[in-house]
């Protein structure tokens, strides 16, 4: 079959690889009908994520049709022929964390748990196509993909919804939504969102869905700010305005009630202690990148909430913890518990309260995926979301 494989920095290819096989009783094999390139795939493309190996299949946003089931799959939940979306994190549904709906913290799905344990103390859940420290699972930018624990990790979707409408339930819609949910939005709140990429877009729309009075979108890419305005957001172009001044002006000198950092520390990537030198280099790079989080803490009103869906991996230099403490802020963060939010978001889509297709700017065949990565990497103003068809 064909799959998009990673070989080194800026080197991804469409390769012929073996078909995936059922390896465990609760596995399923999925025939992929749609898959997307995530902003976090660019961290891999740019070579920031350690423990990638040449030949790894990428992709953690994908959906399709079940073509084969392992003997242990709960047949009341899943059958061959079902059309499903697959959360990017692999979760079991039965461990302490899954029972608390913290599925991105699943205890049982990272076969390489020892690597993040060394860096983080314990390992988060495994993910599809996202390096060996996060599980080493083959990704879904392919014609077929193996889905472990499929009776918990595959969600059936109604036939009357198109792939484009439900594909982003796999990652960026729940990620933006959890960011807004974590922000603990109350009536009358102003929510400031740093970053107007796909996650920022879903975060600001989710904030409005959850009752925010006003949303402020902060970025420097004109195409993205335009997309934010289309949703009704006030925008701040950081290349033209001073963010803190503008936010104070917009909120009558109090500061935004809720701040969402949808930028993350890209330069840090997912650094681990094994790459100490790299972290040191990255720390220097991050003095700019961490700017969003520092600014969010600095601008947030007293007693407000800073919610962080942006990906962080290593250590942060000059973190203004005194400001966070002094103002009594609440900080919430983490990888998305996709399984938890997916069902209610599907209902929002069905009810027409949010149509995720707005974010799609490009549709390309899987065979053209290397070109899609290049475009996405080089032209952030025009290319916001690319959907690939195998």
């Amino acid at each position, binding site marked *: 079959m064909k799959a998009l494989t990673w070989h080194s920095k800026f080197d991804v290819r469409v390769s012929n690889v073996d078909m*995936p096989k059922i390896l465990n009783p*609760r596995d399923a094999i999925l025939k992929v009908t749609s898959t997307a390139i995530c902003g976090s795939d660019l961290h891999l493309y740019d070579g920031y994520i350690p423990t990638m190996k040449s*030949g790894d299949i990428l992709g953690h946003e994908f959906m399709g049709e079940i073509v084969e089931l392992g003997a242990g799959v709960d047949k009341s939940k899943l059958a061959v022929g079902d059309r499903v979306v697959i959360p990017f994190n692999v979760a079991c549904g*039965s461990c302490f964390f899954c029972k608390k709906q913290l599925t991105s913290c699943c*205890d049982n799905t990272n076969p390489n748990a020892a690597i993040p344990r060394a860096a983080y103390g314990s390992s988060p859940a495994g993910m599809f196509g996202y390096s*060996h420290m996060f599980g080493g699972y083959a990704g879904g930018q392919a014609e077929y993909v193996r889905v472990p*624990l499929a009776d918990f990790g595959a969600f059936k979707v109604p036939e009357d919804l198109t792939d484009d409408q439900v594909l982003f339930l796999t990652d960026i819609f729940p990620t933006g939504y959890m960011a807004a949910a974590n922000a603990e939005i109350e009536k009358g709140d102003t929510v400031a969102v740093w970053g107007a990429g796909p996650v920022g877009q879903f975060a600001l729309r989710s904030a409005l869905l959850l009752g925010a009075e006003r949303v402020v979108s902060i970025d420097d890419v004109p195409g993205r700010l335009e997309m934010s305005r289309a949703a009704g957001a006030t925008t701040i172009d950081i290349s033209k305005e001073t963010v803190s001044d503008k936010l104070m002006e917009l909120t009558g000198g109090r500061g935004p009630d809720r701040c969402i950092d949808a930028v993350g520390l890209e330069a840090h990537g997912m650094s681990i202690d094994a790459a100490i030198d790299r972290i040191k280099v990255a720390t220097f790079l991050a003095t700019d990148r961490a700017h969003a989080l520092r600014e969010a803490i600095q601008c947030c009103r007293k007693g407000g909430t800073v919610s962080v869906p942006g990906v962080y991996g290593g250590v942060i230099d000059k973190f203004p913890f005194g400001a966070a403490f002094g103002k009594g802020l609440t900080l919430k963060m983490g990888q998305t518990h996709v399984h938890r939010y997916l069902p209610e978001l599907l209902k929002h889509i069905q009810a027409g309260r949010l149509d995720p297709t707005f974010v799609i700017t490009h549709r390309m065949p899987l065979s053209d995926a290397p070109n899609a990565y290049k475009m996405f990497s080089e032209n952030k103003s025009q290319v916001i979301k690319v959907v690939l068809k195998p």
Partner: protein
Amino acid sequence: MVTPNSVTRTISETTLDQYDLETMDSESPATKPRDLQSGSSAKQSTVRNVGSNERNISLAAGALLLLTGLPKLMRGRGILQTAAGAGLVYRGMTGNCPLYQHLGLSTRDAQHDRQSSGKRASGSSKGVYPDGNERDTPSSKPSAAPSEYNLRGIHVEQSVTISKPASDCYAFWRELGLLPQFMHHLKSVVETDQTHSHWVASAPLGFSVEWDAEIINDEKDRLIAWRSVGNAGVDNSGSVRFIDVPGREDSTEVRVVLDYIPPAGKLGSIVASLFGEEPNQTVKADLKRFQQLMETGEVATNGDGKPRAK
């Protein structure tokens, strides 16, 4: 409860092979491995610890090195090559590898030996000497004394918390034959009766070690404790406790305490650690897989990252 001394022990043939009776010098029975390892003044016998195929290969390769090395030696070169060749020829002819002996390893094939000396196939603790007489095996050393665990043992303590009742965790663990499902260094565990079992574990470089074990404490849903008996490849003892977590329903803390004496003392551990087999990490990974089995019914795998591009 079974008292250890009352137990009739079964020594496996392959375990015997490590410290074989068919020594090159039939006058001196095999030195006890304990003596070999501790480097005592006991005379080191030349035990046969190399399998027949490996012997033939050693012989052929050694001969080749010797034949090509000797002419060089005449010209003052090829010393190492000739020495290596001589070593391999010795290894091939005698079936004794000093390095293996020092590491407590053996590749000697039990199957072949069984065919060549039929009487030994019974697996009894009797040995057949080259003179054809059967005697009690002098290598039937006793289990390691507690002091040896203190002196040379490795101590491991690890725990994991599992969202299943203690009774489930105990029941799975008590079925010893299932242990290799999550203890990946184990090849097999066969229960020979209610309290006895035979264990085969992988050692570095594709070798294996074997031992017999007995359960010395067994409290349903709470505790299993065991120790190796007799001439164990790795003397070991340990326990696993299943503790209800206070205030959390169906949640069990599984605590493992393990003590073992590695083959060839610390050297065995150093060798092992070179292969990523650091004992605490190994036990931690085992317990993690036990958790996966208990909570999800399977051990997580990524299929070695496959499919992937070559």
